[in-house]
């Protein structure tokens, strides 16, 4: 980023604005992005403290079942009451408490899995796009193989390998539960990022400023990190914010295969998976976790748009 020098109308002193200040001032003008930031901050607070606070207020622990109170004689869950604000889930647990605890699980899966996938994809894409040739071929074909793999079958294979004993697989490196879910999401997500980054890198490396840096003797690493990477920030951030809710939904899909988080661990994806058994009799099961998921998705998207606009120096103001 470059600094901007403003001419002050009085006194002749010239104040500069740092890149971060410039970024903040741009972002501040985007009310939607600020709102999204607030929502994400609130979700983060809920992720840390929401579950215990909800349990404390309602008096209902996260995994406690209330069949006698919140299920009818056919085992169907009952809806919202004064004691159970969101009603009960399919296993007669307090849905409000589970939704609050689910925020933690879903955000952990979404953010961490996305972060790792973006990191790997970024490195692979940068290297492939910058160096081209044999390195590009090897890395791109590896990504293509991953993209061509049947994700469902591979996931079933991972389940069979890692779920049948307590210690997981690969000598305990891949543990069943959250680590395994994150690992599977990362495996199937990084190629998309890598492809995107590679495409942009191929384009940017031909720009004049990159040529100028090279002619001044800049090393490959310097060119990659100082010239190319900053120009990737916009698309990367936007794609990252799109990937977070996708990762959350991927976790829900994995639940169908038994590869999701353990049954007692609350997650929005798991709650929505549970809801499909009762979609015609228990509307609350889909509404509340679904609402949280929609709000989260919207917040990340709006924030991503705002960050892109704030970071892109060429954007019209």
């Amino acid at each position: 980023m470059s600094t901007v020098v403003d001419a002050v109308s009085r006194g002749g002193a010239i104040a500069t604005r740092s890149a971060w200040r410039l970024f903040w001032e741009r972002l501040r003008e985007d009310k939607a992005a600020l709102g999204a930031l607030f929502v994400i901050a609130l979700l983060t607070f809920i992720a840390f403290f929401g579950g215990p606070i909800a349990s404390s207020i309602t008096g209902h622990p996260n995994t406690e079942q209330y069949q006698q109170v919140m299920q009818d004689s056919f085992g169907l869950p009952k809806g919202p009451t004064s004691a159970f604000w969101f009603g009960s889930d399919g296993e007669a647990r307090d849905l409000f408490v589970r939704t609050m605890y689910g925020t933690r699980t879903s955000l952990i899966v979404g953010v961490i899995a996305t972060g790792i996938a973006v990191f790997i994809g970024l490195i692979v894409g940068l290297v492939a796009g910058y160096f081209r040739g044999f390195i590009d071929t090897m890395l791109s074909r590896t990504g293509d193989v991953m993209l061509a793999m049947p994700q469902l079958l591979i996931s079933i294979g991972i389940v069979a390998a890692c779920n049948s004993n307590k210690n997981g697989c690969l000598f305990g490196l891949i543990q069943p539960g959250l680590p395994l879910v994150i690992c599977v999401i990362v495996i199937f997500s990084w190629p998309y990022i890598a492809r995107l980054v590679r495409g942009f890198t191929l384009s940017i490396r031909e720009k004049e400023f990159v040529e100028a840096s090279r002619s001044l003797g800049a090393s490959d690493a310097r060119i990659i990190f100082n010239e190319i990477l900053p120009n990737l920030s916009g698309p990367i951030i936007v794609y990252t914010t799109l990937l977070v809710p996708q990762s959350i939904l991927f976790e829900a899909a994995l639940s169908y295969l038994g590869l999701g988080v353990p049954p007692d661990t609350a997650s929005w994806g798991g709650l929505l998976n549970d809801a499909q058994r009762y979609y015609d009799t228990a509307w609350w099961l889909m509404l509340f976790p679904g609402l949280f998921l929609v709000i989260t998705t919207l917040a990340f998207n709006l924030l991503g748009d705002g960050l892109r606009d704030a970071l892109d120096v060429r954007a019209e103001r």
Partner: protein
Amino acid sequence: MKKPLWRLAGLVTIVAAVAVASAVGATAHSSKSSAMKAGGTLNVGWEASFGFTDNMDPTGEYLGDAFGILNNLLVRTLVGYTHDAGGPGNAVVADIATTVPKPTNGGKTYTFHIKPGVKFGPPVSRQVTSADFVTAMNREANPKDGAEYAFYYKPIKGWDAYAAGKAKSISGISTPNSSTIVFNLTAATGDFLKRMAMPAAGPMPSEVTKCFEGQPGKYATNLVSTAGYMIKGSDAVDISSCAKVKAASGYDGQTIIDLVRNPDYAQSTDPTRKNYVDEVRFMVNASNVDIYNKIEAGQLDMATSSIPPAVLKKYATSSSLKQYFHQNSGDRTWYITMNLTQAPFDDIHVRKAMNYIIDKDALRQGWGGPTVGDIANHVVPDAMFGNQLATYAPYKSAGNHGDVKKAMAAMKGSKYSTGGSGMCDAAACKNVLLVSDTRGVDPGMVATIEQDAKKIGITFKVRQINGAYPTIQTPSKNIPIAERPGWGKDYADALTFFTPLFDGRTIIANGNTNYSLVGVTPAQCKSLKIGGNCVGVPSVDSQLDKCSVLIEPTRTTCYENLDKNLMTNVVPWVPWMWSKVTRITSSNVTHYQFDQFATTPAYAMISVKG
């Protein structure tokens, strides 16, 4: 001239009577003609996965739902059943044999004569001979062919020697000619005919099975039928050499079993199966909700699936839908199995505490409540004992919700409970591996078990496995506890509940059904690579041997005492439900029948609209 009123009334009455009679006749005619109509396709949805224990290979397949397919549609046996509900459905009748033989030689010899005209379907297409039964028995005895209930045939002379590789044939089976087969037993075995009615005893063509020697489950995709249907595409299979044998197209092992009429089947030789439909298709569907939506829409006709509670309630309470709601006695126990070699369940006090603490009513709620079954208090369903153990409930609690006080009192004697706290507080009580499946009901069951066990200090690390049976059936995986298992009788004798499940001598490396490893010895643990504590594991083998040679009425009393012994002194399970078999059919089904032997729909007796 006025006609008398009474004449007019009479005329009206006659006309009305004729009209009513016509309507009734028409209705009766149409009812009779719409029920049991030949033709059409029966479409059956199957939840999550087939879950077969041996890929539906008759030699090793032990899943009750698979018995329904095999015995109704693909495999005839020397003797069989009428594929009916209740007591009549448990009576043995002649199938391939001309008659049900009476044993001779003090009950140790059974001679069967094969009906002419009973043939193998494509690609073999020839008369069944006595040698084909020898092939089947040899496969059953060969440990490399994946048999899971070979123990039923041990009374045949020479069985053990053949199984150990010490003999080239089973000496107790002789074939004087191609249509006669004689079984000589080491001792009188009162239920031998019922053992011969199981799918593994059906004839097999050696020209096909030789291609699958030592490959458990592989024969299934080329199963050669003797019953009314065959796997679609069987007629296109080339058996001229083993290298050319390819799987029949109608069974892919994972998602579909498509059966069409067997052209070599002679209905005149088979009084027990009606075979109304032209085709039967079993299709796997991940979602039981989708399955029942499709049944309601007529895209499926019935299902092998847990029934979502909402669907259960709708059909059980609606006057218009009740005709499609079928319930029969299941002769089945659902239970939580505890491995006697794995901590902390190698301690009987812990196992007793688990029996006290589990909320059985909550588990049943997850399946649909009292409509789907009765709370189980011991191993064998009460109905099989004629309700003589109806009042026996050694771990009863108020409302079947579990009893923390009693559980803690039971736990106090455990080596895993320090200082008499009544809690399982040793390290072995934490993060205990619990294996679960991925059916719709499993998350709720796991949640209940985790919640209850936590009250006595036991916590679990849960592993959900799609089609969990093969994992649970491998002793070397050392699974401490699993909530998946259910057991239905093999045939109407209490022995079929005890021998497969608790006889230590039946424990095998794969396909094992004695999940708790009752009676396992240190030598077995070594040879089967079982870890954990194999010393001093309680055994009921001697009691099993004593009961198996008895005849009624002492036979049932003996098994009742065995049940009590298991629940009091061994405690391998937490039995929680005796389920009814509930099936919902679509409006396409014009005649539904239940097969009491297999406790599944009697597929060979069901008809649909054309």
